[in-house]
């Protein structure tokens, strides 16, 4: 068995807030293997972006803090205790990151070419060929990369400023910057969420082809289950600061194990067929300062029973290799068959409590 590229163990990132301590990421463990695409999926506030930022130690500390016992290893090298100088090499070098809105990550007063060149020079040893150094070599490589990510007439566009490009083109520039240093891992946080659907599909195809070509592993953070199904090999579903289900993409969409995953898949409208009613997950996402005790999904779960007062572990189901769910149903599957599941919320008794804020 190959050793993992990235190994995250018991990662906990808490924040001090005026409402008390927010346990944004609360003990998650996962691995990313060389070259594979792992999707981290969940709704807003589940901790998926904080996970990404914690890996690269990009969170402001304070108010954030990584708890003792958290471990992030890149090819066996511990990053949580690494020196700042080493982290600077890793960021944009071995691990690159792209974000939802490229406009906020690009500097508006430099041309896109200058910015790609700068990334290349910062990590020169990894980006250019042997014996090639200096601004001229960096510029040549930058133009090659602009071409590679599908920017037409790259010599000319090298001199463009970010505002002269469309959203899709800006995201292509970000991809060029991120991949030009030939990282082993690309963390992509909602990379296509702000884009129109046809542009999204072009960007996803571009990422997939470059990934195959370069052998880069991708940790994709997204709320969009369609995007997950299209690009991921494995999926991690996050809820309330924890991973609640882990499965291959095929197994997850074919037979979701955790009730939260099941509910999410039934709540998404289907392009092929109009449903009579969408299934509803009742209630609201809990707050990181006050996660429910026991199973954190219990208050919204149609199957919950007395055992759910105890915190479930991530239980291996044996359904497929490496699939697991943080749910007692894995132990007692007959309860799922007798349970009600996610009904379509009835038009009447749907009165919900007003959320405390």
């Amino acid at each position, binding site marked *: 068995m190959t050793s993992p590229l990235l190994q995250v163990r018991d990662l906990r990132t808490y924040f001090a807030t005026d409402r008390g301590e927010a346990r944004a990421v609360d003990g998650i463990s996962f691995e990313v293997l060389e070259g594979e695409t792992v999707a981290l999926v969940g*709704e*807003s506030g589940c901790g998926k972006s904080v996970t990404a930022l914690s890996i690269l130690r990009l969170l402001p500390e304070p108010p954030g803090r990584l708890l003792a016992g958290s471990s992030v290893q890149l090819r066996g090298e511990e990053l949580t205790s690494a020196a700042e100088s080493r982290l600077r090499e890793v960021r944009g070098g071995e691990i690159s990151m792209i974000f939802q809105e490229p406009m906020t990550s690009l500097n508006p007063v430099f041309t896109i070419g200058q910015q790609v060149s700068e990334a290349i020079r910062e990590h020169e040893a990894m980006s250019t060929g042997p014996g090639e150094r200096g601004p001229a070599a960096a510029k040549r490589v930058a133009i090659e990369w602009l071409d590679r990510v*599908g920017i*037409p007439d790259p010599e000319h566009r090298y001199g463009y400023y970010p505002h002269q490009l*469309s959203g*899709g*083109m800006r995201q292509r520039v970000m991809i060029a910057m991120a991949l030009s240093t030939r990282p082993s891992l690309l963390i992509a946080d909602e990379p296509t969420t702000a884009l*129109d*659907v*046809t*542009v*999204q*599909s*072009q960007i*996803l195809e571009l990422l997939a082809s470059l990934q195959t070509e370069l052998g880069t592993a991708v940790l994709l953070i997204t*709320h*969009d*289950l*369609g*995007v*997950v*199904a*299209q690009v991921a090999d494995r999926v991690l579903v996050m809820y309330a600061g924890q991973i609640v289900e882990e499965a291959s*993409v*095929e197994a997850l*969409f*074919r037979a979701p194990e955790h009730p939260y995953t099941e*509910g*999410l*898949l039934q*709540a*998404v*409208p*289907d*392009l*092929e*067929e*109009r*449903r009579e*009613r*969408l*299934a*509803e*997950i009742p209630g*609201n*996402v809990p707050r990181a300062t006050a996660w429910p005790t026991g199973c954190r999904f219990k208050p919204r779960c149609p199957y919950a029973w007395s055992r759910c007062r105890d915190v479930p572990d991530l239980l291996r189901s044996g359904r497929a290799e490496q699939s697991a769910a943080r749910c007692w149903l894995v132990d007692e599957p007959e309860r799922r068959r007798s349970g009600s599941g996610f009904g*379509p*919320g009835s*038009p009447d008794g*749907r*009165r*919900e*409590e*007003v*959320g*405390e*804020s």
Partner: protein
Amino acid sequence: MIDEPVGGRAASEGNGGVLLEAEGLARHYASRGPWGAERITAAVEDVSLRILRGETLALVGESGCGKSTTARLLMGLEPPTSGTVRYRGRDLGSMSRTELLEFRRRVQLVFQDPFGSLNPRMTVGGMLGEVLSVHALAAGEERGRRITELLGLVGLGPEAAERYPHEFSGGQRQRIGIARALAVEPDVIVADEPVSALDVSIQAQVLNLLADLQERLGLSYLFIAHDLAVVRQVADRVAVMYAGRIVEASDADTLYHQPLHPYTRSLLAAVPRPRPPSEKPRATELREGADPPKRATGCAYFGRCRHPARDEECSLALPLLEERSPGRWVRCIKT
């Protein structure tokens, strides 16, 4: 002109079922170019449509296609450069002041960002009460009773009236936005991306609520969205816009099962499906090319089009929106 749908809910009512109607709507914006020359941008061009009683018409398209501008024109929030909007057969441009007030009450807007559209310093009850008193719809004890009733309609308890917008979650705020629109007893609700800021689990709650309200109150919706799966769930009829014009319109089932226009086909092809990868996508799909070069003449979609029959003829003249079968409109000479 988009006619009644084949077998649409209100088709049998004839013209009496038409609530809101646009004919030949255009909206141009003028700006100054680099040397002071005036440039005209056509945000909306030649848009005709009808919204029937009790139906949902969806306007879909990508950012900048003119769908939100069309909605603002239909609501009379800005004047069209040319064309007319009629509400129950009356031209907006020739309405008297009282007729216009009535129109503004009957056609209500629900926004994408519920928080941005709620007053942070007013309780929910205060906000709804204000709407009721401005339109002289309820006073005194009656007002409190009506507020409770409105909150109940959108699935909130009476205690919500005492609270401020920041005390609610995103989905609950959208319910409040809907309650405020309902307060004046509208018959058309224009919903501009009403669920696109919400999480999936909350989105389903709001979509179901909109469906319930339509059934209970007989509302018509003009539903503006970029998410084609969401539109599938709510729409009776769909109009697809590209570069300011309607390029295809028909009843929803037909549009999703047999899209005709190459743009509609590539839009549907681009939607990633939340299905196991082993399930193959449908075959009617068409991929498309990269960003379009702007063209002065011919079909606006020419640069991106990957229709096998696309040729120079497409670039010569603007295709007309033609009715291919009853209720089925397409702006393409090759389909």
